[in-house]
């Protein structure tokens, strides 16, 4: 299996990555077209909802949270693997992260931006958004600092801004390369501005290393706290199915899981579209696949823990809800979640599939479908089958407007992501050079020591 070559010239690394900014395969434009189309549908649905009111979304009482909040959690979850994995693998000096971390971090940023949109969409009366802002006012309405919803807003803002900074700081040396290699024009001006005058001096690298490491250290607990807090949005309520102690780790595992699955999908797309076959290699894909498999098993285990704790808790309502999920109107989706989340990843355990691109692409899409269903199965069944039988509503189904906005969010994310990859180097050039350099050095040292051993024998 071909890995990154040790003898690859550094100039070629620059050339290949810079080429991706100008000359992608035609599939890029096809993806971009569908992204714009889907996003347009989402925009149309949102405009209609804005004009007509939240009734058109078919949200009602008890179904006050629908696909919007489920999809919000999905996008927050998706954001986790990028920055979190990048930071963890950076601290662990895992060399193989280097060609893939940039797009994973971009994925984090754009997922968070997409998730943030759902808060606005869900609010309904957008023109009164300022009601949620804490300032002295005649309404006597104040945000409740004791509410996990407010913690969530703060945590997401912190995570988004920190992730953007982490992405930007890590990109500065590559922006300088882009500045030096781009023909004059608006792009050169943009890279010159963003590179901040980077020249790779020893002083700059010294401070860069400490800064990058420090932010990575901050981001790991931050990422864990963000999804724990999202879990608290549910776990701190008294609703059946939500008031579960294992919710925060369950959410964090789910977030890592969906993020890893998304990394596989995007890895395969970028590898082909931007001709990154020499950098996004199959051995790296294999490592991500194995990591995803491990996280899938943790997620499955935490699911079992959740079911067991409900089953043995003697909480009749929660147990009734669990049975309702398995056998009621949501059963096909609930079982699909179990199938996609726990059974499908077993494909990753089979060695020959760990580098089979069509199989991995299809599997990663199914995993993400499973993870989206998971979020939906957290939100909606609880509303449909709560404590009071007179509030039960098993027949509610999200309207086309809700579905349209959900699909639109995928278009929005894809649009942002693809534009980013065309505008900025999605493979870190300087880190791939470091990777190649260290491997060469390692080979040289090994060669030297082998030679010494041989000389000793003779």
């Amino acid at each position: 299996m071909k890995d990154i070559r040790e003898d690859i010239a550094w100039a070629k690394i620059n050339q290949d990555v810079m080429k991706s900014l100008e000359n992608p395969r035609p599939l890029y434009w096809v993806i971009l077209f569908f992204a714009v189309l889907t996003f347009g549908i989402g925009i149309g649905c949102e405009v209609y909802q804005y004009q007509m009111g939240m009734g058109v979304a078919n949200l009602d009482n008890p179904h006050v949270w629908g696909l919007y909040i489920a999809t919000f959690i999905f996008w927050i979850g998706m954001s986790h693997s990028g920055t979190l994995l990048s930071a963890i693998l950076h601290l662990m000096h895992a060399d193989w992260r280097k060609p893939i971390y940039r797009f994973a971090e971009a994925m984090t940023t754009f997922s968070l931006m997409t998730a943030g949109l759902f808060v606005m969409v869900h609010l309904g009366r957008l023109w009164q958004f300022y009601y949620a802002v804490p300032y002295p006012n005649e309404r006597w309405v104040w945000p409740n600092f004791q509410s996990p919803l407010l913690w969530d807003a703060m945590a997401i803002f912190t995570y988004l801004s920190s992730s953007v900074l982490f992405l930007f700081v890590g990109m500065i040396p590559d922006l300088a390369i882009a500045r030096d290699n781009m023909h004059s024009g608006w792009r050169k001006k943009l890279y010159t501005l963003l590179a901040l005058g980077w020249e790779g001096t020893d002083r700059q690298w010294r401070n860069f290393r400490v800064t990058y490491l420090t932010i990575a250290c901050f981001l790991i607990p931050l990422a864990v706290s963000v999804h724990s807090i999202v879990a608290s949005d549910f776990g701190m309520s008294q609703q059946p199915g939500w008031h579960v102690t294992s919710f925060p780790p369950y959410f964090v595992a789910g977030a890592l899981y969906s993020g890893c699955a998304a990394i596989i999908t995007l890895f395969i797309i970028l590898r082909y579209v931007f001709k990154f076959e020499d950098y996004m290699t199959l051995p790296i894909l294999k490592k991500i696949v194995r990591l995803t498999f491990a996280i899938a098993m943790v997620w499955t285990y935490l699911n079992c823990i959740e079911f067991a704790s409900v089953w043995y808790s003697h909480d009749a309502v929660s147990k009734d809800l669990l049975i309702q999920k398995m056998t009621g109107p949501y059963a096909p989706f609930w079982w699909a979640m179990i199938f996609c989340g726990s059974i499908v990843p077993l494909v990753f355990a089979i060695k020959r599939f760990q580098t089979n691109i069509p199989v991995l692409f299809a599997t990663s899409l199914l995993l993400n479908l499973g993870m989206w269903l998971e979020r939906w199965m957290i939100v909606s069944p609880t509303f449909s089958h709560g404590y009071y039988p007179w509030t039960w509503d098993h027949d509610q189904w999200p309207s086309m407007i809700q579905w349209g906005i959900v699909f639109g969010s995928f278009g929005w994310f894809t649009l942002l992501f693809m534009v980013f990859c065309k505008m900025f180097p999605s493979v870190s050039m300087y880190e791939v050079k470091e990777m190649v350099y260290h491997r060469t050095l390692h080979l040289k040292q090994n060669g030297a020591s082998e030679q010494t051993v041989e000389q000793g024998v003779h």
Partner: protein
Amino acid sequence: MSKRHLLALYGDFDQAEAVVKELRNTKISGFDVNDDMIVKSPIEHPEVEKFLGEKPVYVQWFTLIGAVLGGSLGFLGISSAQANFFMQMKGGKPIVPLPPNFVLTYELFILGGVYITILGFLICSGLPAKRSPLYNAKVSVDNIGILVKAEEAAVGALKAIFAKHKALEIQEEAGK
């Protein structure tokens, strides 16, 4: 007396290291090896720091100050807001509840830490910066550059050292 800049490019770190060592060991009048030399490289290479000698990094102090300020100001801000919200029905609960405030304090601790770390990075790295007198784009490809600043009298000796170690290219700032 005005100083002139020289930039020598090398193909690998070993050559650059040899040059730096020689510059350190050679006494050249009009050239201070500690203040007048900058090594530029296309990758982060800890060995560069080894042969350049220990130089302090202060970014972590910015981090500490940012995190402490972020956390403490965050807690104070939220608590003072809560203490002013007497119109809210508290129902016997504490006016400033510590456990929920801890969550927000934690987030602001990180937020302050990250923001001020970035500020520290920019200050300590001297960014944003103007292009240095002699810049060669090859440094962002695969060359290691040694930029020196010296008085006119020292230029000849420096060029000789660069040439001795087989510099790929020597750029010289035009005389003033």
